[in-house]
């Protein structure tokens, strides 16, 4: 009778250390290689991240819901024509296409706050996280006049173009972040007071890492509410507003 070959995998006797980190430690080995089970886990996470980049903003769903809340909502896109160009030409992703610009300029108004829902590098993150977060945030914003924009093929700075076309006092842009293996559907929020073309990062505040294993909707909504109150009080955004994440979240 043939003996079943022994398994070549050497286990690492420090799996208990995984308690302290989500890094891929104590994977074990076969020869010098990572055991297949772990290789496939990695590929699974990678596939999830790659697919997240290809997801599209669910504009119909987002608009329907926002309209049911009785806010105006417009649909715009950047000058980028497809996903491949999006990745190669960040400059075009920061500018509204002609039609979108005309649409917004026709609706220039007296908005205090414009929320932009933008696809970025993970539209799924926005489809999943934007509305639940807004439902927690909007009740804090009585007295502000508010409008919404959905934006596709968008980079962060497209918010400046949108804000200035609508003549808004403040823009908060909710956008899908670059997917990591452990956070494929992560949303970020960038806020700008007095948006105009050509602003750089130091004029924006950023809340990052909003996803199921990161910042919760409630935490993110409190932070955005805080940034809105600070920005309207000081009439500025960016590095001049100090935000102590740890203190705010522990409150």
């Amino acid at each position, binding site marked *: 009778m043939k003996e079943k070959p022994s398994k070549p995998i050497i286990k690492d006797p420090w799996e208990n250390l995984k308690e302290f980190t989500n890094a891929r430690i104590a994977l074990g080995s076969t020869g010098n290689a990572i055991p297949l089970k772990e290789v496939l886990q990695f590929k699974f996470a990678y596939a999830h991240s790659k697919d997240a980049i290809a997801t599209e903003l669910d504009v119909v769903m987002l608009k329907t819901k926002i309209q049911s809340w009785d806010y105006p909502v417009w649909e715009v896109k950047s000058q980028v024509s497809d996903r491949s160009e999006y990745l*190669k030409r960040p400059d075009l992703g920061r500018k509204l296409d002609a039609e979108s610009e005309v649409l917004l300029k026709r609706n220039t108004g007296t908005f205090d706050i414009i929320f932009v829902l933008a696809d970025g590098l993970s539209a799924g993150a926005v489809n999943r996280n934007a509305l639940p977060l807004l439902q927690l945030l909007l009740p804090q914003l009585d007295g502000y006049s508010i409008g919404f924009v959905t934006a596709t093929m968008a980079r962060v700075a497209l918010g400046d173009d949108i804000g200035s076309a609508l003549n808004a006092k403040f823009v908060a842009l909710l956008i899908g972040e670059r997917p990591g293996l*452990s956070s494929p559907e992560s949303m970020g929020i960038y806020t700008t007071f007095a948006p105009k073309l050509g602003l750089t990062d130091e004029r924006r505040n950023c809340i990052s890492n909003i996803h199921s294993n990161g910042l919760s909707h409630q935490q993110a909504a409190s932070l955005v509410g805080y940034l809105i109150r600070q920005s309207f009080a000081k009439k500025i955004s960016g590095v001049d507003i100090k935000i102590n994440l740890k203190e705010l979240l522990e409150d």
Partner: protein
Amino acid sequence: MPYTYTIQQKVYSFPDLKSVLAKASPFRTGDALAGLAAESNMERVAAQFVLSEIALKDFLNETLIPYEEDEVTRLIMDTHDAIAFQEISGFTVGDLRNWLLSHEVDSQKLTQIAKALTPEMVAAVSKLMRNQDLIAVAQKCEVVTQFRNTIGKKGHLSVRLQPNHPTDDLRGIAASIVDGLLYGSGDAVIGINPVTDSVDIVGDQLKMMDEIRQRFDIPTQICVLCHLTTSLELLNKAPMDLVFQSIGGTEKTNASFGIDLSMLKEAYDGALELNRGTLGNNLMYFETGQGSSLSANAHWGVDQQTCEARAYAVARHFNPLLVNSVVGFIGPEYLYDGKQITRAGLEDHFCGKLMGLPMGMDVCYTNHAEADQDDMDNLLTLLGVAGCNFIMGVPGSDDVMLNYQSTSFHDALYVRKVLNKRPAPEFETWLHNMGVLDDTGNRLAVEPSHRLLKNL
């Protein structure tokens, strides 16, 4: 000075040296984004013909970025070794390529002429070289540096153990350090990228790592990759082996990183005074990467690979222990896919080595680039053949703090095995004594009672 080249009655014109360099570059998205890339394959090859005939001397007469307006240009010009240059002063860029590949040019010769070469000359010749040329010449270079061990000797390949944690949790970082050490990594440096660049957090990380290093008597060095200003504050308050900084190839790029040459000098001098190295005094650790100057809007119309080579002039002024390009981290708008990342990685390694730097590489990609683990296996193997001094070691390739993929501890064992490379000699002896590797470089089975697993 303007240049022209005629192919089949069509005249290709280039207004100056920097446009020849940009248009002669193998295609990459970053140069296209900057509007500097050749507009056709014919224009690219015309630029390469022109470049092959430009005399090396001309690079000393025509600066790409004005001497008066850029301190990196001043550093390059003021430290050029005119005596060593005599041997190659009659060469064109094309002659240099052929000479570098000839058998008469060996490791010693390459060391002699390193400071005769400006970064622009090195970038220029790389643009005329195929990948195998970049590998063949780099393999002839030997750049050895020392702090508590010896890095870069032929036949050796070291690893930076990169134990990052998404919230800077010290126990989480320590867990990854133990994992890496038990896989034979950590001889280049044990180096953390902190989430929060503050004096308190960085200081605590240094103390924790120094305690591990001393408790197990590990012949290596530790580093937190914080900003230079944080290091300056910590020089006398925490166990600081190496000083880290990201650098670029123009004064404006460095300004965007919040540094200049005088700050680098202050930190270098300060760290030298600490006298913590036991075998040598190479103590600076620099990271670079193509695209940083364009990203900072600080490129002066110079292509991204030439800007990168200029960063190496900054690095070599401070006798670093380690320099690596973070080649695939920057994203697809600069390096689109596995092909472009591979080419850039080989260029950066070649240019750094030719200029006399202890060049390593973060063989890496982000998820929005068209690249995967197979591309990284290819580049890792090519760089191993080229004699790369060190690579990164990240648990399972997945950096859970920076959200990108680099090489793993397992990858390091793979490349050492297939190319018959060994860790830094002092570290290799330690690995044997600790029962991590056997004499053939294979891992030994680790018992739960292993010293490194106790009392952490």
